């Protein structure tokens, strides 16, 4: 059984092997430590000259990555916790995202900034957030969220080796130990991949009847959504289709539109705080772009910092139960 962490780690090895232009930078990433979440495990031993441990300087190291990318390298910068990405916001928004466009395509920034987001580990208000919402809609910056589906490493390889633009690559920390669900039908879901590169996935429970509700979720929320789909099918005979995008920004919503056209009901699930978040924009797009009226519900974190204590944190974040309750209300 391959986990998401192993898949990402193997992808980094493959990228470093494949291209001498690939460099890996981050804090505490050298062996034997191998990074706070061990995604960098073994890299510095195998590629000692291209795996660079850095000072605790998030803005600085993202800037260094931009400079390297502008000069023909393909750097990967690890930010230890997604919460720290605020420190590099200027580099991502005012530099990485703009340089290619401002220069009229005279320069490119093939940079990947990888970072673990999300709660569920009791790390409290500054080590548990899903801050990617603040980087969505930044023109020139791609935001990709890895799910525990098919081949997470392929998604990372695509960002590192194929994408000539800056990518904020979001990894939910609860997904690292998760088993990957393959597309071959071994699990209890039928999964269809839509497009390549940064695909969308469509999931339905094996042999389930026509869905009456579309769920849309990325990253770890797609795992919660799957669990909710099982419970709803067996306990309430509500059948759903789940859409899992991997490119969160810019929007790619064709798969969602197709599903929503069938079900007419969509539940958007995100772990970031709900107000003015990803779900709000998805909802607006559904209303603007779909010819028929779509009933939309949203689930996100409560509008407060993420608390540390286990029962408080659970109350603040989305859960299977919250998804089910909202789903039942939508199909009623």
């Amino acid at each position, binding site marked *: 059984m391959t986990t998401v962490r192993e898949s990402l780690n193997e992808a980094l090895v493959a990228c470093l092997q494949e291209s001498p232009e690939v460099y890996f930078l981050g804090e505490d990433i050298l062996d034997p430590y191998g990074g706070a979440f061990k995604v960098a495990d073994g890299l510095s031993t195998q590629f000692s000259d291209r795996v660079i441990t850095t000072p605790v*300087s998030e803005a*600085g190291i993202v800037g260094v990555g931009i400079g390297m990318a*502008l000069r023909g390298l393909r750097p990967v910068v690890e930010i230890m916790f997604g919460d720290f990405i605020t420190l590099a916001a200027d580099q991502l928004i005012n*530099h990485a995202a703009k340089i290619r466009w*401002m220069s009229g395509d005279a*320069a490119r920034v093939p940079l990947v900034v990888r970072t673990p987001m999300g709660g569920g580990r009791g790390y409290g208000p500054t080590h548990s957030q899903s801050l990617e919402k603040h980087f969505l809609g930044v*023109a020139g910056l791609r935001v990709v969220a890895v799910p525990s589906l098919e081949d997470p490493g392929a998604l990372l390889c695509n960002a590192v080796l194929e994408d000539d*633009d800056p990518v904020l690559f979001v990894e939910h920390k609860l997904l690292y130990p998760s088993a990957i669900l393959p597309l071959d039908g071994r699990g209890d879901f039928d999964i269809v991949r839509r497009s390549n590169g940064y695909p969308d996935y469509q999931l339905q429970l094996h042999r389930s009847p026509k869905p009456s509700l579309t769920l849309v979720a990325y990253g770890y929320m797609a795992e919660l959504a799957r669990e909710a789909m099982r419970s709803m099918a067996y306990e309430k005979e509500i059948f759903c289709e789940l859409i899992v995008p991997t490119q969160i920004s*810019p929007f790619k919503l064709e798969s969602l539109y197709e599903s929503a056209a069938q079900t007419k009901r969509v539940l958007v699930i995100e772990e970031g705080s709900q107000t003015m978040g990803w779900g709000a924009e998805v909802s607006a797009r559904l209303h603007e772009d779909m010819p028929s009226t779509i009933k939309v519900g949203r689930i996100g974190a409560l509008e407060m910092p993420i608390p540390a204590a286990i029962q408080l944190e659970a109350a603040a974040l989305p859960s299977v139960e919250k998804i089910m309750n909202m789903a039942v209300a939508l199909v009623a």
Partner: protein
Amino acid sequence: MEHSPEHADLYRKMLRIRLFEERLLDLFPGGQIYGTTHTYIGQEANAVGVLAAMQEGDLVVSNHRCHGHFLAYGGSMHALAAELLGRETGICGGRGGSQHIKWQEFFANGILGGTVPIAVGMAFAETTKQRNSVVFTFIGDGTLGEGVVYESLNMASLWNLPLFFVVENNRYAQSTPVELNLAGDICARFEAFGISAMELEARDVFEIMQCARENTPSVRAGEGPRALILHTYRFAPHSKGDDTRDPKEIEQYRAQDPLQLLAAGIENEERQQIEKEVAEEIAEAYTNAESDPQADPESLTFPLGGAS
């Protein structure tokens, strides 16, 4: 002031910047120029002197006050004028304007300090390609207030990278005098990171040039970054109409104008010839730019191929 065969050439280079910028400021009241600008009038000797040490393949990382650096780097005066006038022939087709330039190995961005770690990354990449190039990185005294500068100095020194930092201390961060926003010593900031730093009262372009030429070979040879602090003065406002400085102070500095100091050392006839040629060059650059087609909104593209 010493004499050298480069005397006339340096004068021409500095005068090109001076007259280009003066013409630019003249255009604002007439409404021909949209947006803003930060002129280099008074500081010309810095870019011209420092970049005299530049070699083929070297990089320049500049800032909001970038026109002088760009012209000293060898950038096209016509393309710069066209960029400022919003023409499709501009350096970046009118997308970047005054502060955002990318041409060959020249990069400028309007975010203070944000360019410095990028310069460090460029220098890192140069070493991996064994290109022996130097990254000339220009910042000002105001930028010393930005934290990311110090993250960058740390890494530049830690990794022994080929950066030549130039601090142009023009004594004001926009309208705020340096005494009100800078504690301690500028050189000491670099020296704290193990970066050797020199400082000059930047009046004599020969002195600046000599200092840059003496101090860049070790940077090029991989012996680590160095810094040059140039105490300078801008004669024009920070931007356009935002000058609150005492006119007497400006006059005092104008009396020590590096350009006039240099002009005094050139024979009259040669000097007048240079002045005539440069004036013609400036007029032609602006006239051509003004007759170029306006940047076309149809040419706008969405980054990443998406509208979101």
